[in-house]
């Protein structure tokens, strides 16, 4: 360095040793900078490593934003859809931070984290049928749908004249859910009429038998019931022909369903952040899997008029979105 300085000021000739020393200095500085960019000191350990299956999916992006807004600490974000160095080297990253909580958004992210880490606490969200995920002491999460009682209470609130609700389901996927739903229905003075199917070919027969017996069809997330686009089309066609409205769980059905109740995404993001804060603060979480505390309600006024369903107008302030 002295010689370089001298070159500027006094024009002295550098010797080979000085040059080698200077090169060594520069290489050391660059190496240090490189290390800093790829690793954090213990002091900078991310409280949560967020693994998003794909932040290009709007609901995944929204829940991550809600989480980041409410989480008290640093995060390290990984988007599996990016397929960059971070996603490829996930195992190394997770090994560096065994104390961090891993928050996974979407099933692919959960599977990746579950296979890669044994020691981190993992919180999942945005997965369908969470009951099919592996259960372990270090696994936590939030269900993707409001519990049946919450939905049934809202059905009762919005449509006081509806009493009998039909549900087509498969035992393999939704036996427990149905049991919970039937107890919940009793609590709010509703009746659930179930129809079980074992494979998609039984759907038409089940719809033909069930629809005349009920006031409304409750479409639930079941891969045997909605096995294909053709199954969905059959359900919508039959319900239209029999003039029976549909309650559904996802906005993708908004043109066909009278009412959609889904979990409120910003609330879920908050809840996951609170859970992460608890786990990092070494507090015991009351439950491994929590229910979403908020609901997002979409009402299709066209269907309301077409099926002449009586709506409790006092409940309109609880509706997030009206489709006309």
């Amino acid at each position, binding site marked *: 360095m002295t010689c370089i300085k001298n070159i500027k000021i006094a024009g002295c000739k550098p010797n080979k040793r000085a040059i080698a020393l200077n090169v060594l200095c520069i290489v050391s500085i660059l190496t240090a900078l490189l290390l800093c960019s790829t690793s954090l000191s213990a002091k900078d350990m991310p409280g949560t490593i967020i693994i998003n299956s794909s932040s290009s999916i709007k609901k995944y992006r929204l829940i991550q934003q809600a989480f980041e807004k409410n989480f008290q600490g640093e995060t390290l974000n990984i988007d599996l859809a990016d397929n960059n160095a971070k996603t490829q080297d996930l195992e190394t990253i997770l090994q560096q931070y065994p104390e961090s909580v891993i928050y996974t958004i979407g099933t692919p992210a959960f599977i990746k984290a579950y296979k890669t880490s044994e020691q981190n606490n993992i919180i999942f969200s945005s997965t369908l049928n969470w009951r099919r995920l592996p259960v372990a002491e270090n696994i936590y999460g939030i269900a993707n749908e409001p519990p049946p009682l919450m939905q049934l*209470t809202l059905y009762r609130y919005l449509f006081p004249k509806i009493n009998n609700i039909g549900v087509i389901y498969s035992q393999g996927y939704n036996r427990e859910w149905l049991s919970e739903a039937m107890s919940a229905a009793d609590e709010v003075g509703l009746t659930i009429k179930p129809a079980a199917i074992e494979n998609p070919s039984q759907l038409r027969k089940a719809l033909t038998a069930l629809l005349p017996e009920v006031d409304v069809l409750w479409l639930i997330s079941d891969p045997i019931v909605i096995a294909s686009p053709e199954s969905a089309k059959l359900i919508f066609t039959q319900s239209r022909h029999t003039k029976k409205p549909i309650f559904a769980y996802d906005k993708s059905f908004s043109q066909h369903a009278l009412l959609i109740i889904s979990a409120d995404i910003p609330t879920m993001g908050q809840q996951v952040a609170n859970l992460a804060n608890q786990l990092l603060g070494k507090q015991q979480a009351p439950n491994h899997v929590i229910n979403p505390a908020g609901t997002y309600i979409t009402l299709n006024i066209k269907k309301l008029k077409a099926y002449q369903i009586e709506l409790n107008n006092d409940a309109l*302030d609880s509706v*997030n979105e*009206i489709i006309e």
Partner: protein
Amino acid sequence: MTFKRFRRLVFLAVLFSFYCDIPVYSAATEDPGKQTIYFYNPETNINNFTSLKIAFDTYLGNYKNYNFQPFDNKQVFESTIINHQDSVFILSSWHYQFLQNLLDIKPVLVGLDNGKATQRKVLTAKKFISNVEQLRGKTIAVSGSERYSRSILREILQQSHSVILDKLTLILVPKDIDALLAVGFGMASGALTNETSLEKLKLINPKQYSQLHILGVSKETFLTIVAVPHKNSKENQTILDILSDMGNTEDGRKKLNMLRLDGWRKLTPSETSKLQSVQKEILK
């Protein structure tokens, strides 16, 4: 004139023309030429602004070129209305008490819910939580903004329990019924809601209702209000007349139901004075 100088002049001329043509965009993205009614309510988290705007624009479109502009962000709302002080505002009565320091406006109409112009907030919990002390460090589900909710909780908890407020985690849910059910399901230890919402739960789910009890109640406050500039215009008066009439038609009432109201009435002079007396609450 050299080519270089000519080129510089052309550049400046183009820049100037762009400057002159740049429109003034507000967060409201309102239609020019239309009178706007501005709305913001921190007492609710429900995100139904698109539906609200469509519903009210459609209703007001029956009369003239009026524009209804809801906001979901307090800062954006306040920074927008600063430049539109001659307009009509639909506000939370709580928020109005702070806004009157910012704007030269007066309240003229108050919302009604089943004939009542006032409301009370209640803090409820499951029956095994017998007093507010047991809420220390717990989660409370609220359907309003964090600032508004903490203000009401401060009032309910009073000085003797104000320390508890700092230790509470608030979870913001879209609506009152979500907050009450969150307690039932154990997602929260308490809920802050309207008293009327608790009464509705009694009708739709008596079992959930029977598991809850009230730990504290706020003072009576006015429901949503309509405010106009002190120097009110003829145009604003026309809007006030249209709003006043909403409760007299089925269509108008349905629009008001989206605001948890079913009508409007004029505020009495004593009610106006009460609203205009500033509450000196220090908010965190």
